[in-house]
């Protein structure tokens, strides 16, 4: 025993010689970092990260963060205010140190108050923040702080290195020591910043170094923000699942998911009776499917109801749906349950169909190589009618047969089949003609330049379902305002508009038709004894589309569409057309615009069409898109010259 203690003594001495909380020295700052006044790769930046270090140790449940920020402008001094959020019951922030290093090299260690600021307390969860503000931060100062996030021991979860940050990063260094006993996969979905080598695992630690990562910017019509950031994703998986390669992973996912779907959608007498009640023996498979689709949409869809409070949900005591039979019996289901109920009906009707797990593209840009099954967040039905394959989702209210909501269109999905084979399919993307806004206008022009008459707007496909979904829980007053506001927003000047009919808000298969009384004061501008009539009455939506010359991200649209306007203008008695603009046609393949004006007797007919036939345009094509929308605006500003009395011959085109 004595011998044992003696043998331990040198080690004990060594431990005692190290301070219990040894302070690591700050990393050296170069003279260049001290003196720099701007970063050529990030001109105008208020501040930049000179260094970002994140070292995570999932074996010890800790994460050490070290940030070094150079302040370059007055606005950059705000980075001297620091807030580090954490969940009080799950983690703590330890060893927090900060300092300011001035351009002359003088150092001010932070010894001020660190406030523990409560951010949110709800349902037993307390979100807090360590907040402090560094004194004496000037332009040219370097702000440094570091801390350790100590998470609950053994708490393992998927994490990520976010390489793109709010500021330009000159140098970033990241490491992760994985937790023992778990399988870890990592990937970099949109690639890595230029000149960054991919993460390497050495000595049990995955490491990455990066340089010159631009600050992340947000833009209109961009893909989901998170999908556009340089990042490395880490996903833990059960080591027993033996899913080290992509094929094995998705095989296991398919098998598990198919088992669940099969169990839910198993055929039963009840379902067969329901099918028999709904379809006629002579119905074609597609007709049958349409009837069954309509039946599924008659169910109460819980996903499209107002968000109820917990108490309301509890009080209603809705029984859970374990099978399609349950859905039928209860008469309700959430969106996925309604879709699977429809799938079960198809099976009962012996129609060739399968379920496709898909990832909605408003949240993710799905890539199976990432092996992240959580991203397959909903399902659609793939049905075959002869040579035709259709993708259907009655689980989305107001979705016509043959359509999918925009965020499920054109996405890759995992087809679930009995054999467990991995089979990917891409959902359909409706063409522009399938989602239309058609406005027909019949108006009279008076001598003061005012247009007055009627507008009929017809919305079809996704254009109709989008509006019905948006207004599903609103009353007639709100819906009227919604439609009137849309028309007002589309006309680039002040108008008076009043809805005159009662549109069908409840249908899915029928177009949404809205009729308005409408007047546009002063639409025609006086010019001596003439008046000028702009041809683009509904150009308001495109007035500011892609107005800036520069672009960072690809362009991303919800769905293809076709917007057509036909405007009949009856001229005031005695007025003639002196000149009309030539027809316009601009076509950059994925977007088309056309406008024309024609005179029939005393009636002018103006036509305008804007057609989008894509959902994504690469950033390198932005100049063409920018020019296209300039041309659209130019076309909308074309003017018809009208004059009182006979038109001068010389002025006719």
């Amino acid at each position, binding site marked *: 025993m004595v011998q044992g203690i003696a043998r331990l003594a040198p080690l004990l001495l060594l431990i005692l010689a190290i301070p219990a909380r040894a302070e690591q020295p700050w990393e050296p700052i170069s003279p260049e970092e001290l003196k720099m006044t701007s970063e050529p790769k990030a001109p105008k930046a208020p501040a930049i990260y000179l260094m970002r270090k994140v070292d995570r140790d999932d074996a010890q449940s800790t994460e050490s963060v070290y940030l070094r920020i150079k302040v370059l402008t007055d606005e950059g001094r705000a980075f001297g205010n620091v807030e580090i959020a954490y969940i009080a019951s799950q983690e703590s922030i330890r060893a927090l140190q900060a300092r300011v290093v001035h351009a002359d090299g003088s150092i001010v260690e932070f010894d001020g108050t660190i406030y523990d*600021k409560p951010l949110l307390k709800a349902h037993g969860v307390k979100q807090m923040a360590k907040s402090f503000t560094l004194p004496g931060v*000037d332009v040219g100062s370097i702000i440094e702080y570091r801390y350790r996030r100590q998470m609950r021991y053994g708490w393992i979860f998927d994490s990520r290195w976010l390489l793109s940050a709010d500021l330009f990063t000159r140098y970033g260094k990241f490491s992760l020591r994985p937790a023992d006993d778990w399988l870890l996969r990592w990937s970099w979905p949109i690639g890595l910043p230029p000149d960054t080598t991919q993460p390497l695992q050495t000595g049990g630690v995955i490491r990455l170094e990066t340089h010159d990562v631009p600050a992340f910017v947000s833009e209109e019509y961009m893909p989901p923000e998170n999908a556009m950031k340089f990042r490395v994703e880490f996903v833990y998986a059960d080591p027993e699942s033996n899913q080290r390669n992509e094929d094995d992973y998705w095989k296991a996912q398919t098998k598990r998911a198919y088992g669940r779907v099969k169990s839910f959608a198993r055929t039963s007498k009840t379902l067969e009776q329901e099918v028999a009640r709904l379809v006629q023996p002579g119905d074609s498979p597609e007709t049958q499917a349409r009837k069954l689709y309509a039946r599924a949409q008659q169910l109460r869809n819980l996903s499209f109801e*107002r968000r109820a409070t917990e108490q309301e949900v509890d009080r209603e005591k809705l029984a859970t749906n374990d099978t399609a039979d349950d859905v039928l019996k209860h008469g309700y289901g959430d969106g996925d349950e309604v879709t699977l109920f429809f799938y079960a009906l198809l099976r009962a009707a012996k129609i060739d169909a399968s379920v496709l797990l898909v990832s909605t593209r408003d949240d993710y840009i799905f890539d199976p190589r990432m092996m992240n099954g959580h991203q397959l967040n909903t399902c659609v039905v793939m049905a075959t009618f002869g040579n035709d394959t259709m993708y259907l989702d009655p689980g989305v209210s107001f979705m016509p047969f043959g359509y999918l909501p925009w965020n499920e269109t054109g996405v890759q999905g995992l087809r679930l089949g009995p054999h467990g084979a991995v089979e990917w399919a891409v959902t359909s993307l409706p063409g522009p003609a399938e989602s239309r806004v058609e406005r027909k206008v019949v108006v009279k022009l008076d001598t003061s330049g005012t247009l007055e008459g009627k507008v009929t707007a017809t919305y079809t496909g996704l254009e109709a379902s989008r509006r019905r979904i948006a207004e599903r829980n609103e009353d007639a007053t709100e819906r009227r305002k919604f439609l009137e506001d849309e028309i007002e927003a589309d006309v680039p000047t002040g108008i008076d508009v009043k809805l005159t009919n009662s549109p069908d808000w409840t249908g899915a298969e029928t177009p949404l038709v809205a009729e308005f009384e409408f007047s546009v004061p002063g639409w025609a*501008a006086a010019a001596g004894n003439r008046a000028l009539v702009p041809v683009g009455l509904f150009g308001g939506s495109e007035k500011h589309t892609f107005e800036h010359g520069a672009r960072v991200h690809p362009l991303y649209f919800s769905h293809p569409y076709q917007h057509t306007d036909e405007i009949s203008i009856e001229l005031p008695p005695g007025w003639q057309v002196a000149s009309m603009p030539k027809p316009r046609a601009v076509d950059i393949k994925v977007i088309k615009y056309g406008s024309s004006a024609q005179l029939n007797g005393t009636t002018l007919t103006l036509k305008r069409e804007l057609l989008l036939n894509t959902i994504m345009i690469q950033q390198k094509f932005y100049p063409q898109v920018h020019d296209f929308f300039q041309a659209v605006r130019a076309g909308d500003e074309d003017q018809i010259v009208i004059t009182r009395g006979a038109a001068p011959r010389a002025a006719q085109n």
Partner: protein
Amino acid sequence: MGSRTVLRAGIASLVLLQATAAWAATAPDWMRAQVNAPVPDHDDETDAVMLYSATELIVLAPGKMKRIDRRVLKILRSGGESWGAVRADFTPQNKITAIRGWSIPAQGKDFQVKDKEIVETAITDVDGGELISDVRRKFMRIPAAVPGNLIGYEIEQEMQPYEMTDEWDIQETVPVREARYTVKLPQGWSYKTFWLNYAGPTPTEAVAGQWSWVLNDLKPVKIERRMPPWRGIAARMVLSLQPPGGNGGGFQSWQEVGTWYLGLVDGRRDPSPPLHDKALRLTASAPDPLARMRALATYVQRDIRYVAIELGVGGVQPHPATEVLANGYGDCKDKVTLMSSMLKEVGIESHYVLINTHRGSQGADTPPNMSFNHAIIAIQLPASVDKSQLPAAITHKTLGPVLFFDPTDDLVPLGYLSGELQANYGMLVTPGGGELIALPQSSSALNGRERTGKFTLDEHGTLSGEVRETWSGDGAAGQRYALRSAQQDVDQIKPIESMLTHSLSEFQITKASVVNLRALEKPLVWSYALDIPRYPRSAGELLIIRPRIFGTLSSGLLETDEPRQHPIEFDAPARNTDVFEITVPAGYVPDSLPPPVSKDLGFISYNSSTTFSGNVLRYTRTLELRELSVPVAKAPSLKSFYRTIENDERNSALLKKAQ
């Protein structure tokens, strides 16, 4: 053994909680009494109506009050569901001791919000975005707040106010059927009421020391764009409470409010040797008092970073000047404190001015109160300073020439005030106490933009030229703000691109630069050049040219379906001018030119003219806004005025080849 005891205790309390919840799930009588109450008059866009609003104030002692607020609403439309999301702010001095919510569905049993459903958050949307503040918020979502149902809530507060006053906000943005307010005073206490925007009734004294006011069928305050702060125009009662003997009661005068504040700031401006040295160093090269003021103003504006740490009385009490200097940061009152202290070191007296940046929140008739959200400084001008050169200066009846300055606003130089402070009311705090004073309003000539563009039209229809824009006042501040938030070169030009896109379908900016970005005392000048392809339209031999090449001065503000109900508020007096000259190819003469426009409503005027001389088409216009507030009676004429501008902006000149 220990853990078994804990477990048993846990079960016991759980049972108790459940029993309480079951008992309390019925809405209280005061709410249930409203089930059959008639719904007050409303239009079809009204989301909800307030059937019952009751406030009870119980005064316990000087500096100690209890207040209970109860509300019952009927939800009429889905938009009214937001009334079921109830928020209440609190501080350590102003505690919420209970918050409860219920709903009475049209069918089925009542709901009651459970304690565990109440969320507590930090306040993140306050002015200035304080870094550290002890203001917190409780939030609850009342179940079944849907059309047809009644919702109600009750909030109990224990308050330790700095001032023994209370406010009763009577009107809402929805109709109110019954509003009542009750005050219970200890023996010997008295009260005084101030009514705003309403002729208040006489209270009833049901029992000794308890008074009640009841109002019925109050119309909603309609929310409109550019209206005064709605609480500033809504019916309100302010109650000032006085204990026996008169000490420790509510403020009776602005002088009292100022005296109280003076006590809070006592000693905060005391200098230290480093502060003294810093003030002298900063002003060492300043040749005169005005230059010294400018040097110190620039320092406090720019070098003292805006950071608010407001805990407890720190919401109104500044940090000591020496601390602010050492830290290099502070909030508005800290900046005033430091600047005042430094000014004193160079021989210049100055004073605090507390103000509410929402002009209209405080007015000449507002009773004494502390509803301020900002602090600025009033500098007593030495005799050698020419006041006439300083638009933000007034002559005070006892202090003489006084210059107002906002050291928090780092975009407005000394001598000027931003629009939100102009013609606003603030409390000047001098050794004699407080005084509510009106801040000066600047001339329109000091704020706005002068734009001059010289263009040449080539034979291909491309209009090329250079533009110079000179911005001053709030206009310059707005430009500087937009420019400083640009993080990349391409961001800098974006505001110009957006402005041009509003008027031009196609253009290419070929160069752009800005000067005096940091020199606040000078106008900000934008210079840019652009090409506009296919600018004129052709109609046979005619060229159609819009002489107003770009820029929009018209406004759709009053293009609403409903008639305007409230005055129209503008940010600041302003004057904007445009001069565009277009040199057209030789051989063209005018066929018709847009008619000149001259319209003057007194508070606003607009003039434009188009001429053609030689081969130059020249367009000039000026829009001048002279007043900050336009009465509602003048809204129709202002609407017509803006339509006139819009028509003028769309007008075109027609040119033809000379014969």
